[in-house]
């Protein structure tokens, strides 16, 4: 009865549920998607080109703007690359503090992902609760770094600010509060209607996930036990004890559950890091005015960001400005395979699938 011709529908860059500026051109027959193309680039801010014009120190605020939900991860990535190039090992305490802040950012990022996922599916309450918890984390970050979203905190060989007095107690009490609430939120979100919207939707098989270049919690939701903190450890992650959640089904529900579990594991990591926090200096090398030249060469460093495996390929020509900084971001790779996943699903499923892949368009477009 419905017309069998193929209609082209544009899910435009301004859209309430695409997690940012993504333009999807869909070819639909009735309610089912036959083919689609993704257009990105609406948030391209030439961050990589700007790197080439600034001293290393001044590139750090640029990296914040990529994944604006968990900004410290990109900073850490860039600074690690320069540290590897110059063979500087940061002090023990600064590494532990970095890990604490990074894992808090991971929790904050997953809160955004899960909250927005609930909102996209119609369960508005999840969004409010997740952002309420995120406010507490952002306040804690503000006490350390001075900024809620953009921190500019990590420096070569250390950090700009040390943890203020009494911060670790506040952090621990926040974690006990979040731990209790998180299990309740999990039970609230997972009801029968949620399963109907997410089970079996957007299934990515194990082979396809690796072939197509999936990263992060989405990859672990398809059965691959890959986490950079385990297979190429950096900072002090080899001394910390945590599990990597892996699920086999490969559908949106599995990806959501992997994120939910990761918050639990991150809470565990932060508690361990606070317990083992050594005393010592955290001051970065010539922290304020580092515009001296850097060893020439090239380096590739990967990190496990909140959204997946991110890498930076840094080429230095011996001056005080990077020659080329190429960022490989997980959301870029995940968005590339979006058109392949949504074929055969209904229009209402696109929202569920995008939410479960969790792209952040600052990272995609850079």
């Amino acid at each position, binding site marked *: 009865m419905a017309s069998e011709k193929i209609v082209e*529908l544009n*899910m435009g860059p301004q*859209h*309430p*549920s695409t997690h940012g500026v993504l333009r999807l051109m869909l070819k639909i027959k009735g*309610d089912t998607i036959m083919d689609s193309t993704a257009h990105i680039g609406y948030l391209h801010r030439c961050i990589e080109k700007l790197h080439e014009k600034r001293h290393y120190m001044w590139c750090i605020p640029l990296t914040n703007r990529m994944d604006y939900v968990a900004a410290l991860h990109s900073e850490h990535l860039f600074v690690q690359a320069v540290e590897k190039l110059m063979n500087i090992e940061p002090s023990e305490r600064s590494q532990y503090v970095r890990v604490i802040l990074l894992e808090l950012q991971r929790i904050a990022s997953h809160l955004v992902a899960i909250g927005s996922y*609930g909102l996209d*599916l*119609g*369960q*508005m*309450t999840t969004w*409010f*609760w997740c952002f*309420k918890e995120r406010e507490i984390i952002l306040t804690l970050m503000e006490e350390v770094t001075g900024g809620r979203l953009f921190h500019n905190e990590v420096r070569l060989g250390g950090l700009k600010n040390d943890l203020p007095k009494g911060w670790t107690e506040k952090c621990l009490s926040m974690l006990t509060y979040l731990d209790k609430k998180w299990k309740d939120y999990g039970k*609230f979100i997972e*009801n029968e*209607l*949620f399963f*109907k*919207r997410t089970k079996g939707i957007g299934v990515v098989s194990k082979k396809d996930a690796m072939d197509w270049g999936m990263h992060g919690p989405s990859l672990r939701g398809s059965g691959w036990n890959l986490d950079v903190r385990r297979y190429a450890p950096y900072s002090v992650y080899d001394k910390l004890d945590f599990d990597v959640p892996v699920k086999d089904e490969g559908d949106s529900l599995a990806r959501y559950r992997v994120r939910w579990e990761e918050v639990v594991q991150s809470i565990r990591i932060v508690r361990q890091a606070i317990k083992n926090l050594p005393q010592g200096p955290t001051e970065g090398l010539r922290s304020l005015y580092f515009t001296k030249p850097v060893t020439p060469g090239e380096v590739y460093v990967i990190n496990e960001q909140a959204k997946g495996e991110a890498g930076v390929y840094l080429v230095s020509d011996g001056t005080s400005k990077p020659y080329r900084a190429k960022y490989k971001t997980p959301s870029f790779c995940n968005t590339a395979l979006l058109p392949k996943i949504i074929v055969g699903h*209904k*229009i*209402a*499923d*696109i*929202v569920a699938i995008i939410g479960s892949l969790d792209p952040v368009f600052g990272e995609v477009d850079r």
Partner: protein
Amino acid sequence: MINELMNIVIDQVMLLLNLPIFLRDYLVVIGYGVFASLVVGAVAYGGAYVERKLIARIQSRYGPQHPGPAGILINLADFVKLISKEDIVPDGADSVSFRWAPIAMATILFFTIMLLPFGKDLFAVDQSFSLLLPVALLSLLPVAILLIGWASNSKYTYLGALRSAVMSMSYEIPLLLSVVGLVILTGTLNIVTMAEIQDRGLWFVLLQPIGLLVFVISMIATAERIPFDMPFAESELVAGWKTEYSGVRYALTFLVEYGLVLVTSVIVVFLFFGGWSGPTSLPNLPFKIPSEAWLFFKVGIFVMAYIVMRASFPRLRADQLLNLCWKYLIPLGVLNIGIAVVERMVLWV
């Protein structure tokens, strides 16, 4: 109580204006119409206020605070804002249908409320078919929705209206099917009689739980609330068939939504929960509790249930809604009829 009050007022009016006796029935109907409008107004106003505050509290925030103490006058403020907006009719829209369809919907709703009883003696018309008539009138609403969707001259409102109409029409079948069992049990289509039977004996929720389940799910779908509001909330449809409305017409569609909530809650309370039945005097109270109070209390519980469901559930996809209706609810409704037949043979022999 309200009945007595109304009778007193009508008698006074007739005395004052020296009206002939045969006009009394018409005055009763008019009085009842006034009462029904007040009720709908109160439910739309108060229900919307309670919705905003309750959902806000569930979501760990406060809700409206300012106009009036604790934000009570928020809906009055919104209503004034809506009335003062410019009346926008889209270019190319069918002007008569676009303008009059929401008014038609509101009229249908008022008719339906006029037909409903609100207490033991508080009804305006003969109640012999009161189970069928409100539901039959409500089935005119999808027609109005289709008209609006087409008249708005937009591809997306048309799609939204089609989906909405299909959903409403499909869910009317289990709505009536689930109460056929009750008709078999009681032998009457008069919901006041059914409530009287429950008042004397057992509430039907204990005899017909499956019927209640099917009826409740169907009534949420008919009212198009979460978890069944996909036709409005689909990502590309903006707001479904309501998209092009602003100002007073938007207020009317809003009124229709809350009116549906009220109508379906009243029907379910009369059919399954005994209507006004409840103890007339509690040990610590010095006065007798009027029967209407119990009715409004139970209706209030159902309205709150609608609101809490809106805060807690995600939406179902459009094809999943229809799946639920045709594959699960209708067979359950038929099963329910079988159970009702068995009960009748066992209990009423």
